[in-house]
């Protein structure tokens, strides 16, 4: 349904272009839940907005294609995109307080979207708006409310309701839970998953919190410094992370059960993206790097069902001097994903 191929995005910066997204390729099938994780500045939000064609100068798509249901979104004009927008592809943003127009009521903002795609009858608009609000558990009286009159959780759910006005095929979510407290986060995630089961849309979910999506996503894409570090099913990546960065991320989250382990972070900071790197971008921080990691750009190679961008993996691994002992496996203490209960799946 969605096929991203070789997508690259640049920001025009003071000292030269900043390569925020570099040659990213992946696909999303119908009804799939793909999570994109990475630290701040790794390009995940930029990737999202690039897919939805919502970038604004100084950001620009400089290469690649985004094929959505047969159409290449990158080459389409705004007029052509207007048809697809919201009807087939909708967006949920991080902070509903910022994403909702403060001077218009919720109902008016729903009506805007509906009317823009041809719904003329006021009665129809009202009934559809009430319908989606019901889906997320908000009383339809709130159609008259303004964003600042709702609580944070309600606002977020209203945004999700708005995204579902046309039951699109794909909903892109940019950290929709970051502005909420832990309890609200959990309940929102469960609700999203329920809606997905009911209405069958696909989700691309961007977050920096790996443990949050572990329970809900089908596939997981780990990004680092604008590139895909690892891409595979959630289960595989959690059980057997191939990229040292993914491993580092997982080791940073404590498990609820199991023996007490020392929490380790990933020392150092992400690289400067205005400079073109001729090496693995993670190598300065990598605990298991080889010499050739600092001189060769690793390609994204398939390893069974997973794709990984690391010289320690893949067919050429041996050539680069990788040996069996370089593979440090996550201690399989419980065989469970961190932070999950016994009855996962």
């Amino acid at each position, binding site marked *: 349904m969605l096929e991203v191929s070789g997508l690259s995005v640049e920001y*025009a910066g003071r000292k030269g272009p900043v390569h925020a997204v570099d040659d990213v390729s992946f696909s999303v099938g119908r009804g799939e839940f793909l999570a994109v994780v990475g630290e701040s500045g790794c390009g995940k939000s930029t990737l999202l907005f690039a897919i939805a064609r919502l970038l604004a*100068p*100084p950001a*620009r*798509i*400089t*290469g690649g294609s985004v094929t959505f249901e047969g159409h290449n979104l*990158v*080459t389409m004009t705004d007029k052509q995109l207007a048809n697809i927008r919201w009807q087939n592809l909708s967006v949920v943003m991080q902070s509903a307080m910022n994403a909702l127009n403060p001077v218009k009521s919720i109902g008016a903002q729903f009506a805007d979207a509906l009317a823009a795609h041809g719904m003329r009858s006021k009665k129809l608009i009202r009934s559809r708006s009430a319908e989606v609000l019901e889906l997320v558990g908000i009383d339809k009286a709130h159609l008259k409310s303004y964003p600042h009159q709702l609580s944070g959780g309600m606002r977020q759910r209203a945004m999700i309701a708005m995204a579902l006005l046309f039951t699109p095929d794909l909903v892109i979510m940019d950290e929709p839970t970051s502005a909420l407290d832990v309890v609200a986060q959990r309940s929102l995630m469960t609700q999203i998953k329920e809606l997905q089961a009911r209405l069958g849309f696909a989700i691309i979910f961007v977050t920096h919190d790996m443990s949050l999506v572990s329970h809900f996503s089908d596939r997981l894409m780990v990004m680092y410094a604008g590139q895909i570090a690892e891409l595979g099913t959630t289960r595989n990546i959690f059980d057997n992370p191939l990229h040292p960065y993914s491993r580092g991320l997982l080791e940073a989250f404590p498990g609820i059960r199991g023996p007490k382990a020392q929490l380790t972070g990933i020392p150092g900071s992400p690289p400067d993206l205005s400079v073109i790197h001729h090496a693995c971008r993670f190598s300065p921080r990598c605990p298991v790097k080889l010499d050739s990691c600092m001189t060769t750009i690793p390609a994204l190679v398939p390893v069974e069902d997973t794709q990984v961008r690391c010289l320690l993996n893949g067919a050429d691994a041996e050539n680069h001097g990788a040996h069996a002992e370089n593979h440090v496996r996550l201690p399989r203490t419980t065989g469970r994903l961190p932070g999950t209960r016994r009855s996962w799946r």
Partner: protein
Amino acid sequence: MNSVLRTLKSNPITRSGKATAGAIILLVFIILALFPGLFARKSPTAEIYTRNLPASAQHLFGTTGLGQDVFAQAVYGTRDVLEIALGAGLASTLIAALIGVTAAYLGGWIENVLNLFTDIVLVIPLFPLLIVISAYMHNSSNGVMIAVLTFTGWSYTARQLRSQALSLKNRDFLAAAKVRGERAWYVIVVEILPTMSSLLVAAFLTNGLYDVLFASSLQFIGLGDPNSTAWGTMLYWAENNEALQAGYYLQAIVPGAAIALLGAAFALLNYAFDEIGNPALRRVPVTRRRVSFRIASRRLSRA
């Protein structure tokens, strides 16, 4: 020397074309004010020349209805205008800073009283008040003009500075000063004000601009010192002389253009400061609407 040149070349003022233009104009006027004798050989007040002459090699801008040299007047008048603008601008910025920041820092009922006072003064229309006060005071020297302008002009800046100070109020370095036991006035003068320096400069420039305009306006309607050669006064005499109707255009054009130029200098500098403070306002290079994968050619961003 090299490092001085480097600073001159790369600081935010020189990088912005607007700011450079503004700074140069201001500099020219300052030099004219400081050394008028270098540029105007004739006396500005001597009424010895033939009246109402047009521009010529001897009188660059002609003469006035009283037989004075217009060019000399304009040059010497710079001193009056700059005195008033810089003096009143400085004074009103200082008062505004003290009142605004004190209100923000001390909070409580003091803040409420000061705020109310500021808002009331703010709302009363400046120019009519200036007219009324100047009309009553028959003494109209520069000093009086500065006092009157300051008294009426501090309120807008006070509001701006107060909101800035409010946002700074909870920063750590202020809490540290409080814990050290420093008194309120010390914290205000030594800790807060220096942090707000760019805003203070911008406020000073705004005040300077409006003081130039207001002072010239008052002089124009006859409330200034009729014996001075400030530009507003020059216009007053030109109007009295019915210069426009009679066809002696330079008498009216020259002083007005001078005021506009000086005002523009302040305004340009101010605009550039705005851009420095808020990067979103900087000039954006145009990119082509059609998406193409060749790097779109960009206009060099001339700021």
